[in-house]
């Protein structure tokens, strides 16, 4: 037990002083830019809770990838130089957590794309929020599914009923496209004082006012704009 406590003190000393760990870039605090991790965590939480797909944080993802690579190299370096294994293990755990965040963020987005394939390709707003590669993925995914539908069902049906998106030739709009439910309730917290319209424009202008730090359980549609501008976070 006593040895453990001493190790702890050593590690804290190491973390506090930058000169011990060889070079300023190896200081623990700056190893993984904490603000970027915070941003990633926020993007991840919002993405998980929102019923539709949100804007792709391209710059953040790129920075995160670079930093993860950098940390991985540093850790390899340490292992080869026989650095204190407990310290290495701490860095490794921190790296694992950040990698999980990044992977989960991309995964949640892919699942949403899969779920609302046709809607995302039809709605311009949704298409703008995808990254270049996600757009390619969505197109190919939709193609795969259409092909699967055609071979399993559609080509066996009579002619006017063979469309994937419309029920029949008579339908005026694409009525078989599932859309995200924007009316779902979400839990959110406000970062600033925000005043929002509860109803659509033109109807009774009741507003809800949120103070900084207030928690609200409210329909997603209402807070959608505020989330995009960063004033409100989903939990």
């Amino acid at each position: 037990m006593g040895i453990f406590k001493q190790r702890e003190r050593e590690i804290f000393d190491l973390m506090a002083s930058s000169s011990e760990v060889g070079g300023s870039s190896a200081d623990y605090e700056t190893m993984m830019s904490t603000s970027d991790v915070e941003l990633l965590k926020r993007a991840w939480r919002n993405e998980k809770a929102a019923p539709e797909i949100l804007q792709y944080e391209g710059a953040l993802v790129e920075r995160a990838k670079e930093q993860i690579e950098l940390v991985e190299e540093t850790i390899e370096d340490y292992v080869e130089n026989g650095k204190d294994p407990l310290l290495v293990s701490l860095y490794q755990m921190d790296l694992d957590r950040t990698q999980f965040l990044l992977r989960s963020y991309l995964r949640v987005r892919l699942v949403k794309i899969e779920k609302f394939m046709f809607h995302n390709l039809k709605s311009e707003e949704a298409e703008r929020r995808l990254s270049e590669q996600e757009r390619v993925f969505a197109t190919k995914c939709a193609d795969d599914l259409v092909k699967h539908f055609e071979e399993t069902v559609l080509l066996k049906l009579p002619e006017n009923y063979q469309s994937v998106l419309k029920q029949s030739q008579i339908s005026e709009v694409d009525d078989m496209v599932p859309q995200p439910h924007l009316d779902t309730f979400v839990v959110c917290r406000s970062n600033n004082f925000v005043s929002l319209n509860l109803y659509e424009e033109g109807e009774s202008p009741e507003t809800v006012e949120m103070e900084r730090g207030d928690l609200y359980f409210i329909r997603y549609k209402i807070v959608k704009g505020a989330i995009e501008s960063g004033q409100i976070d989903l939990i």
Partner: protein
Amino acid sequence: MYGRKGYQLLKDFASGEKGQLKPFNSKLFDETIEECDQNHHLMQSLMRKMQQEDLDVQNSRNADHYGALIHHLSLMRNKRCLMAYVYNRAEIVRDLAWRVGLELLDLPSEIQEKLTSLEKEYFKNHSVTLKSYMGKVGIELNVDMVPPKDPYIKVRILDDIDEGIVLSDKTTNFARHSMHFLKRTDAEPYIARGQMEELTD
């Protein structure tokens, strides 16, 4: 009674456990498609009858019109049932790709039996799409599915894997029932396929 087969097809699907597939019910499926054909023929013959009587097919409202309408509605309902069946199964197939693995041969044989050859095609195509996305982004997305608590976990081997494992930091022989202390990211794919189990105590 029109539409009953479509309903039975969906009930068959819903009676399986959520997230699990039952074998593809080709019998009901084909019967529903036959019914669609029937509906279509009857509808067309009714419409032809109206044309022969010199009635405006779009706008006149007589018994034949309503008969044709019923056939049309039944056809649409059957189409929706059929597509819902295929769509929901496809959703589960995609889910399998995430949970178990991207190679068709990695799927346990009980699951492979329940998929039709068309569904297996779809699975392969979807895997290709996923792999190409992951390649472009440069990150593997089907590891690390659970938030990491400990970097190393204790596992027990359930199947005979022996030499088939590549680990990132050591090489060991994996005999059945042996226990090892592995890195979480290395062990995850094997746990997902049921070849190892995590020991939590």
